[in-house]
């Protein structure tokens, strides 16, 4: 299963090669041109010679992980998060380094903690990775500074149509995008599998500039907080209620006209749709929509519980509905361009 393979591959920001190689093989039969740009973005193109709007679908390949920044005299590894990780979720988790070396994120056992120590969550400074090394020399033979440590979670279905796994944040989008490429659409389509989203939307910035699409759709997973003790108005998105269309986040204010279009296409096709209700967070749309002279951009999110953690959770139905919605949007897109008052004027390159 595509999503399982993608979830279990290791690839944090700046080290997306395993994910990229896998995706390259997966999409190669379905695209006309395939390339990797200088930042490491994987770009697939279909129908490049057709006229019509150039549409970019974007999903990011990178996941959050830990970077090894020091090896102590005793052979323990100190680390820093790459991307947004809550240090409180790290204690005692197994990790994998260099796809071979197993480690455990260690901390003082509860038996040994003083009362005051139990009151405070541990920070990254107090945690370390134990790879069972006997000494600094022993550890240095297996790990070097700058290596990455990844969560080891196995992707699997559970409960009533739910999936759990690591790295779902970006890989859900990658999987939907890869599946969509099997279909035929009659306009130029660009698949952008981007790098370094988790550290500041960096890959997308470069990709959007050189690809210069007329329209962009971002595919992502987004926070679902529907199990929290908070009131319903703080839930952001809810599992099982369909893909969530972004209204606003820290990096983008989505066009009301485009949101209206997404809403009407979902309704016409009987696909459930919800809105992403928070205004925090950000995604590749933030870089893409202000590229060049401006690119109309929407973002569709698969609701995801426990995002950026050891095991995040999505609903299979939301995943399917998101695929169906993007497919319906793409089929409808040429008509929308014809009748839309949105400015799709291309940059004058003369």
């Amino acid at each position, binding site marked *: 299963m595509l999503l399982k393979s993608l979830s279990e591959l290791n690839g944090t920001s700046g080290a997306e090669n395993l994910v990229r190689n896998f995706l390259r093989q997966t999409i190669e039969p379905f695209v006309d041109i395939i390339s990797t740009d200088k930042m490491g973005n994987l770009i697939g193109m279909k129908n490049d010679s057709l006229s019509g709007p150039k549409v970019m679908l974007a999903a990011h390949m990178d996941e959050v992980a830990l970077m090894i920044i020091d090896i102590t005299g005793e052979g323990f590894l100190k680390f820093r998060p790459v991307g947004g990780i809550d240090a409180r979720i790290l204690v005692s988790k197994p990790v994998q380094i260099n796809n071979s070396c197993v480690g455990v994120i260690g901390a003082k056992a509860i038996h040994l903690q003083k009362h005051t120590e139990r009151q405070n969550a541990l920070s990254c400074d107090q945690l370390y990775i134990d790879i069972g090394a006997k000494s600094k020399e022993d550890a240095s033979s297996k790990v070097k500074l700058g290596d990455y440590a990844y969560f080891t979670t196995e992707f699997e279905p559970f409960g009533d149509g739910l999936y759990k796994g690591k790295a779902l944040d970006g890989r859900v989008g990658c999987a939907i995008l890869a599946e969509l490429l099997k279909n035929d659409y009659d306009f130029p389509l660009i698949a952008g599998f981007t790098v370094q989203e988790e550290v500041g939307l960096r890959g997308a910035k470069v990709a959007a500039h050189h690809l210069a699409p007329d329209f962009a759709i971002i595919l992502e997973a987004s926070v679902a907080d529907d199990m929290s003790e908070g009131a319903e108005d703080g839930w952001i998105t809810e599992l099982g209620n369909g893909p969530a269309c972004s*209204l606003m986040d820290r990096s983008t*204010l989505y066009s*009301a006209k485009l949101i209206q279009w997404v809403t009407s296409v979902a309704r016409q096709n009987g696909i459930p749709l919800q809105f992403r209700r928070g205004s925090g967070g950000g995604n590749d749309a933030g870089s893409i*929509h202000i590229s060049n002279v*401006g*690119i109309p951009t929407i973002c569709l999110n698969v609701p995801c519980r426990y995002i950026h953690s050891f095991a995040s959770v999505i609903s299979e139905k939301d995943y399917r509905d998101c695929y169906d919605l993007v497919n319906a949007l793409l089929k409808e897109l040429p008509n929308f361009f014809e009748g839309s008052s949105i400015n*799709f*004027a291309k940059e004058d390159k003369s």
Partner: protein
Amino acid sequence: MDMDFRILEQLTQIFGPSGSEEQVAEFISAQISPYCDEVISDTLGNLLAVRHGTGKKIMVAAHMDEIGLMITHIDKEGFLRFTPLGGVRTANLVGQRVKFNTGRIGTIGVEKLAKPSDFKLDKLYIDIGAVSQNEAEQIVHLGETAVFVGDFVEVGSRIMAKALDDRVGCFVVIEALKRSKSTNELVFAFTAQEEIGTRGAKTAAYALEPDLAIAVDVTATGDTPKDHTMSVKLGSGVGIKVLDRSLITPPQIKRWMAGVAAERNIPFQWEVLEYGGTDSGAIHLSRGGVPSGVISIPTRYVHSPAEMVDRSDVQAAVDLLVSLLEHPPD
């Protein structure tokens, strides 16, 4: 020449939070079209205008958007929860009236608080007078935006209204555009989405590719009781920006602006703003870099429903902009 402040009055009262600047653009387009060779709207919602000439291409920018609120949830009783659009001050909100694009008015209420320090944005809601969720959903939808209600009032030499940030900047640019006898190539950007991160200015500058740029925007003052330390005063002339969080004005631009002001006897004050930024922040980093300055209009109570400017400062800003366009730097 006397200025027609009725245009400013109309500008401040148009609905135009970030992302919904269409009506402001429409109004400005009608004002400036007779004086420009080309007027277009772009993808982000910027209104771009060109007046052909020779020599250096000078860009003038003022942002059309105002701060506002976006609806994030409609509850079972028909109350609305919201998120800020731009730098909204939570402390100012309770009891304020807000207005949707449909004209519907609401007021902002607050939950019962156990202690004053519990006062946070998520304790506030908008009451639009709906008696049920169903009724509320007929009136507003998720993602819809609202702005403050804040009438245009003339008080002595001063004016207060909502959205003077930055409709007064738009007004200054419109007035200067009408009067300018500059023979330079002039490009004007009435920008979108400044309040949420100078996003419109970024794509506008990329599209227009100017040789230098001036943004016109409001700035804070330090002249009210026990105010923070800032040497900008209402009524003491137009501000020439030295620095804010987004820009350090290059020396040659400062010299040019202050030199022209001094020569024409236009009252000005140096402006150092320790927080905030404006469109020049985005413009000066466009492509290979664009030397950029800012004409600042001293404004009290920025981001409130009653922002306040002095008419003489607005006049000085117009005079300075007209003079700058006629005397570009070498």
